[in-house]
């Protein structure tokens, strides 16, 4: 896989993730068809797997050895989020939602750490904002399920908090896609003297 394809995978993946979160917004809290649920799940899977594959490929080929750890963290984060969200959708018990929350918190934290490393080195502060929004948004989904089980919120409250989470994650995905697009543009741009 060429590096160009890796960048494209990451940007396209984050864009798909944004669309997936909008699809989740559309079906959450209302009765949905099986086709709607399957489409949303597929989009979420693609939206997390594509950037995970892209960042992993970048880590392996573009800037070893130090960059591997940074972009590897992002890849690990996205995989963690994917597992967490899958568990959250499939879970019907409190323990299932707690397991989901653990995956999402770990995934979100490693994503944020990776984004901070990259941002420090490559002046891409938007990536930190994007990773933070994705982590917070994804975490709201199992958190609202747990709150429902703890009788802290109603069923409608759960749907609203999950919608807010999906909206935050969608915004984070757009910002992350943008930040990788900017990083790619900088890499392509001709050198300009700073003096």
């Amino acid at each position, binding site marked *: 896989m060429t*590096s160009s394809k890796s960048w494209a995978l990451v940007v396209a993946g984050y864009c798909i993730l*944004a669309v997936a979160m*909008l699809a989740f*917004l*559309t079906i*959450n*809290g*209302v009765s949905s068809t099986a086709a709607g649920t399957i489409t949303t799940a597929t989009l979420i899977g693609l939206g997390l797997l594509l950037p995970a594959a892209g960042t992993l490929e*970048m880590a392996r080929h*573009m*800037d070893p050895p*130090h*960059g591997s750890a*940074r*972009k590897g963290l992002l890849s690990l984060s996205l995989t963690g989020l994917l597992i967490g969200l899958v568990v959250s959708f499939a879970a*019907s*018990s*409190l323990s299932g939602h707690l397991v989901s929350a653990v995956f999402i918190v770990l995934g979100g934290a490693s994503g944020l750490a990776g984004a901070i490393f*990259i941002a420090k*080195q*490559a002046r*891409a502060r938007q990536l930190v904002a994007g990773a933070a929004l994705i982590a917070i948004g994804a975490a709201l989904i199992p958190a609202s399920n747990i709150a*429902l*089980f703890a*009788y802290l919120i*109603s*069923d*409608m409250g759960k*749907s*609203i908090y999950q*919608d*807010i989470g*999906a*909206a935050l994650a*969608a*915004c984070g995905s*757009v*910002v992350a*896609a*943008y930040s990788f*697009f*900017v*990083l790619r*543009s*900088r*890499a392509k*741009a*001709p*050198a*300009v*003297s*700073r003096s």
Partner: protein
Amino acid sequence: MAVQDKLEKAGRKPSVAHAPKFPAIVCIAALVLICLYSAFSIHRVIAANAPPAPPRFTLGTAYRDVTYCNSQTLDVYVPGSAATGPLPLAIFVHGGGLTGGDKAYLNPTFLNALAGAGFAVASLNYRLAPASQFPAQIEDVKCAIRYLRAHAQTYDVSPSKIFAFGTSYGGMLVALAALTGGHSNFDVGPYATTSSAIAAAVDMFGPADLPGWVSPQDFHVAFGGNRANLVLASPAHYVKANAPPILIVQGTADTTVPQSQSAELYRKLSAAGDHTQLILVQHMGHMFAQVGSQPIDPGMTRIAADMVSWFQRYGAESR
């Protein structure tokens, strides 16, 4: 130094080129659209969960938001000149997973069919989980029956001709009310000396045997994670001879409360020698939803007429 490394490898100095303007505009536009769409989606969820307006009643007098036990409220619809009192009374109990729903969910087709046949109709709210877990709901339903029987003169209804019908968990509650009789462990609170018996019931797609059916979420939220409560809430657990007649209405395409639940209650009632009937509605999912391109069969008007006939048939047998 991810990007710098790459640039240095390419023999260039790091670029200070700013972000391209066009993608920045696209990014901002996407963020604005996401915010607008999420606001729309949240508004839709709130609107979907808001109780509907109570049904319009043009056939007589509507007494709305009458307070009964535990600060709960009910509406009473009394038909006008066509009927002569005292009237038989049909009580509607809404569904909603024991966590939601409202007395305004009374279907106008049922209200008008009953009122047109000379029935007064009451629709009641009851305490909801998780604030109030089972058996608060059946206690309120039974208290509402006792309240209405105690105030029969106020609404010009006959205390010996009180019926009940309910949808989903409301169907389960009316079946429980019918099968547990006039004085049971669920009869707590005011009007304790008044009977909470009903003459007949219509259970529309209510769960009947909860231990094998209830979702883990309902189990924790509505029943406090107590398996004994599941048995106590199961109408099938109380089936005995000489129970009030129960008409069961069930959609064949219902995936929320499967047909097996209604079939089990029907089988037990029949085996006990009780008056019962199971109407299987083709192409109907949960809450009268049409599944597929064919309309539900029998339709709502026919179901309402069957309910009226059921109550009229067993109205003479006061309990």
